[in-house]
């Protein structure tokens, strides 16, 4: 039962990644691109967690933490760059 639920969640987040990829490529504004990239990082964290459950290993937790931090910092850096034209004033 867990296996099928796991496959369902994999499918959901995989389709979500495709939606985000579509939004990155065909975006009406640059803010949407940044938002889609941030969502891709969040979805990737979920996919990594699902992969860890599937293979029954705790090895991926550090990867998830790093993904969360780098995704957040890169999003804030993009937004800051668009707002001010510079990162470190």
């Amino acid at each position, binding site marked *: 039962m*867990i296996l099928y639920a796991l496959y369902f969640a994999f499918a959901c987040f995989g389709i979500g990644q495709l939606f985000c990829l579509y939004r990155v490529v065909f975006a009406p504004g640059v*803010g*949407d691109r940044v938002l889609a990239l941030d969502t891709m990082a969040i979805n990737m964290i979920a996919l990594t967690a699902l992969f860890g459950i599937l293979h029954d290993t705790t090895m991926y937790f550090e990867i998830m933490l790093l993904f969360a931090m780098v995704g*957040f910092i890169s999003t804030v850096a993009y937004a800051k760059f668009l707002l001010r034209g510079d990162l470190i004033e």
Partner: protein
Amino acid sequence: MDLAGEILISAMLVIGGAFGLVGSYGLVKLPDQMTRLHAPTKAATLGVGGIMIASLLWFGFFGERASWHEFLIVLFLFLTAPITGLMIAKTNMHLTWRPDELPYPGEDMHWATFGDSADRSLMDGDADLDNTERDLRE
């Protein structure tokens, strides 16, 4: 006991997956820039929270032992999602809205990205003016 654990983990996985899918679909479906901000910052974050609870339960029931790592990741995501939303909303406002389209903010107040300091931002290339103003204020 095992069956209850399986049902609980499966339910969390399905709920998390559904929320994640809704969050990413909203990014494509919703009509305008500011409403599109809502779906990923709320629904997708909640979906990841569900998946993390499922992972915690899985390692508690069937793995070696439950750990605090998932809580750490969920805490970090829930703390950073509103900040991300705020920054992108300010970016949208700054890039696509004009100051006279916005509601009146009140006496002696201004919208964050349209104040005096924004006029002197480094985008315009006059960094010297910015520095002198800052020196005068100090």
